[in-house]
């Protein structure tokens, strides 16, 4: 396969220039860009024009990844022309979170077919219930198909996200590409590096992905006290304390939930995933070093089994990680780049939700605060 990556930042010049000869029916174009590309989407239209036969997928971000750095107000693009692999594009509408499961099932129906190996999903980040979307998708696909991808971001504003549809940035859409063939290798890995701390708390009041109370007291108050002076930065600073959630008291695995929004009037917190009523929750924290280590773990797993030669590494990391890492965000990207083959191309974005099979699992799950890495290669 042949691979090129391109970055568009201010001033608007592609580095390097786009190469239209890469266009084909077996070409995948991934574009991750800032929210502002909602308005003035000339660059995106350009992509659609230069690669008319290709499968074009893209979404807004909370930071675009290119090589070893994270950028804002830019576009990160990867163009991959496969030789032996067939691609197919799927798309569905999601108006509100309740449509999510059906949308996922719809995508699956469009993609299901012989030799389907993997699916990469990019979804609206704000009006979708990520958990339901992935469940609907995975339920209708064969168990051997791995699903990776992410939910579009909007910096740390949480206001509006876009997903590319016919080269146009649109809200309320879910898109996916399926990889078919025996020569394609899609490796995946994920890790988060957050550790739970402090007392276990009973989730005494929650509805769907909205948390009201822990141990009978407003959850928002708990966050404010732990954030201290950083509470002024809510909801964004709530990303610093993701929630570890257990559905049942004796579950071995827990889920990591990240904040999406808060409501001061209702004293509620909306998370990017369901909060199980009567379950257990604990706060989580991390340090930069632990986050960076987790990135290294993730890429290690994803890169294993990759075909020699060129590979496309797509990292979907979490806005919460960027908030904590701050200036050291690039470090986790460096770690990933260093672990991949020298000729690999590295793109990706900081998202509002990451999709990848769970550690040691199959199919796909929604993660938060997690570094997920997908390594695509062809033998």
């Amino acid at each position, binding site marked *: 396969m042949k691979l090129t990556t391109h970055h568009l930042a201010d001033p608007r010049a592609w580095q390097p220039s786009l190469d239209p000869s890469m266009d084909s029916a077996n070409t995948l174009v991934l574009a991750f860009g800032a929210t502002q590309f909602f308005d003035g989407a000339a660059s995106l239209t350009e992509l659609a024009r230069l690669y008319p036969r290709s499968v074009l997928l893209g979404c807004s971000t909370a930071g675009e990844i290119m090589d070893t750095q994270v950028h804002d107000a830019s576009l990160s693009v990867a163009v991959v022309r496969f030789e032996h692999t067939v691609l197919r594009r799927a798309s569905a509408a999601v108006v509100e979170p309740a449509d999510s499961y059906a949308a996922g099932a719809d995508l699956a129906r469009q993609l299901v077919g012989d030799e389907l190996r993997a699916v990469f999903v990019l979804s609206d980040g704000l009006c979708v219930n990520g958990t339901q979307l992935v469940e609907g998708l995975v339920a209708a696909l064969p168990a051997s198909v791995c699903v990776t991808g992410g939910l579009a971001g909007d910096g740390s504003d949480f206001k509006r996200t876009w997903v590319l549809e016919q080269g146009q940035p649109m809200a309320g859409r879910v898109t996916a590409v399926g990889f078919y063939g025996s020569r394609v290798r899609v490796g995946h890995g994920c890790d988060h590096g957050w550790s739970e701390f402090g*007392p276990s708390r009973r989730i005494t009041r929650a509805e769907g992905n909205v948390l009201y109370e822990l141990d009978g007291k407003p959850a928002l108050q708990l966050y404010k*006290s*732990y954030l201290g002076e*950083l509470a002024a930065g809510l909801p964004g600073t709530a990303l610093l304390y993701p929630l570890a959630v257990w559905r049942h008291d*004796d579950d071995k695995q827990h889920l990591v939930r990240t904040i999406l929004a808060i409501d001061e009037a209702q004293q509620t917190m909306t998370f990017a995933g369901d909060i199980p009523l009567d379950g257990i929750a604990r706060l989580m924290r991390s340090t*930069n070093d632990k986050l960076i280590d987790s990135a290294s773990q993730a890429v290690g797993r994803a890169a294993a089994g990759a075909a020699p030669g060129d590979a496309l590494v797509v990292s979907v990391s979490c806005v919460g990680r960027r908030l*904590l890492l701050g*200036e050291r965000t690039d*470090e986790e990207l460096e770690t990933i780049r260093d672990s991949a083959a020298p000729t690999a191309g590295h793109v990706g974005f900081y998202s509002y939700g990451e999709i990848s099979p769970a550690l040691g699992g199959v199919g796909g799950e929604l993660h938060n605060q997690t570094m997920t890495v997908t390594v695509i290669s062809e033998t």
Partner: protein
Amino acid sequence: MTEELHPLLQRQLRRLQLTTDAVPDASSWTRLAERVSRAYRDFDQERYLLERSQDLASQEMMALNEALRTSQARLTSLVSLSSDWVWEQDADLRFTYVSDPSAGGSGPDLSLLLGVALTDVQRISMTPDMARRHALAASTHADFRDLTFSLSTPAGGAFHFRISGEPVFGPQRVPLGYRGVGTDVTRAVTAERQLQHMARFDALTGLANRTQLNERLELALARAGRHQQSFAVLFVDLDRFKAINDSLGHAAGDELLRTMAHRLSTLVRGVDLVARLGGDEFVILVEDVVEPAALRALAERLLLAIGEPMTLQQRRFEVSGSVGISVYPNDGDNSHTLLQNADAAMYLAKNRGRNNYQFYTVQLASQAFNQFTLEADLRLAVQRDELTLYYQPKMRVDTGAVSGLEALLRWRHPTRGLLAPGEFIDLAEDSGLIVPIGRWVMLAACRQIRAWRDAGFEVPRCAINLSMRQFASESLEADLRDALGACGLPPQALEVEITESTLMTDARRTERVMRQLHEMGIRISIDDFGTGYSSLAYLKRFPAQVLKIDRSFIGDLPGDRDDAAITEAVIAMAHRLDLTVVAEGVETPAQLAFLRGLGCDEVQGYLLGRPSPADSVSQRLLRHGGAAPAMPAPESAIDEPVEAISPVHARPTLRDGVDDPDRAVA
């Protein structure tokens, strides 16, 4: 120098495309400064978050700990105050912990539970149902409630506990054991068992009660039906129990019953059942044994055991029993019939003089009925003037003079004819009618004596028979005085005859009553001597004047060597004790001659005169002017006119001299 810079700073320089070799332009410098500043803030924030989250979490944990401690203290306090206790078991269901609320108090020592598993059958027992429930709960690691079990103690006792518990799990739902609460229910269980026992056992004697008897009868019937086997029902009634109970009090009566219950129990096999129906009635259920010989042997053993003297309230007593036997399936194929028929056979035994056993026969049904109506008739006999007294003379052997008369009760029954006491005295005793009848006899005898005296006859002493009940009555002395007084007679006019058995029934009391009578001046005669369990020690203390040798020793004289020896010995002993000896049942001249030879003082029997109504007696007294009729001389005994001799029927304990109870010659 670049190598020594912090990696982050290196990265930041790279980002801005700066090196340390060249001085950055102003905007780059500003951007670098901003980045470096941001990095410092990041570090501050990271530390801030770390410290803050640590502090807050620490505070929360302490608060939780405190709450836990308080909760623990509350729980401990509640547990220590509660009469219930808490327990824990390990995965093998062995008790590993018990709190002990009694703490050395009066409760059971719960530490006995430690180390014991609920499945340990050596120490723990529970009903099969409980065991099943527990096994099910344990196998599915489920809760259980109200599991009752008993724990045997080294001392040989048992405690009963009731526990409820829930399973305890560790990580990954590994079962660690159980924990729960428990309570001591020993008292409740014991009380319940007692209740159950009481429902099936007689409280006084500890024998099976009627309920249990019926159960066993049904079982026996079922078994007998299935396996073509038989079984027998023995009805055992204690003779004259009511009299003893009334005269000595219920405490003595109870003790008597307990003693009898024990004696009966020791005579039967484990498979058989001895039950108390109530009062003085016992029923014995004998399984698989129906040969008459075996049942006879058993009945005789029972009678022997019942008849053995016993000590009640430091006094010596003797009673006898009557046994009725019915057999399945001949005498009935259901409980009710078998019991009823055994009962009828028992009544027959009573009628035949008591202290014997009878097998059921088909005729008994009507006889039982007869018994019932007879009692009703007897009740009316006194009012209807159906009772009358016959008199039989006693004569001195040496002179042939009439030394006394014995008054004998007769009942002119409207349909059955003249009945002798043998046919209704037991009935009278059992029903209590003996009391009014006894008084009637005293009065009637006294009146007759008065009449004879008024007519100018020299009336010898007249003897009346006293029944056991009369003898035991507190009003005996008063009744006698009343009768004598009403007829203006001195006490010396009367004599009382009391059987040896009656006297020995309550020897100590006997002595007291006899002294009373003796002091009154009434002559006392020990009747039917030789037929009871006499104690010679008492005999010498009884203030009696006369000893009457029972007819059973006289009947075969002079041929029977044993009877001869006994008679000779009794006469000798009686004389040594200054007692006058009367031989009863003398019917042949040979007997008379032999007795004369032994020195017997007086004789009574058909040879000398049959019992006859007062009129006949009057004639004799008239005829002989009060002197004795011609006594057959020793040599010409055979030629003298004598009354017809009727055959003697040996009978164990008849009291008067009538051989044939069905008819008496008027």
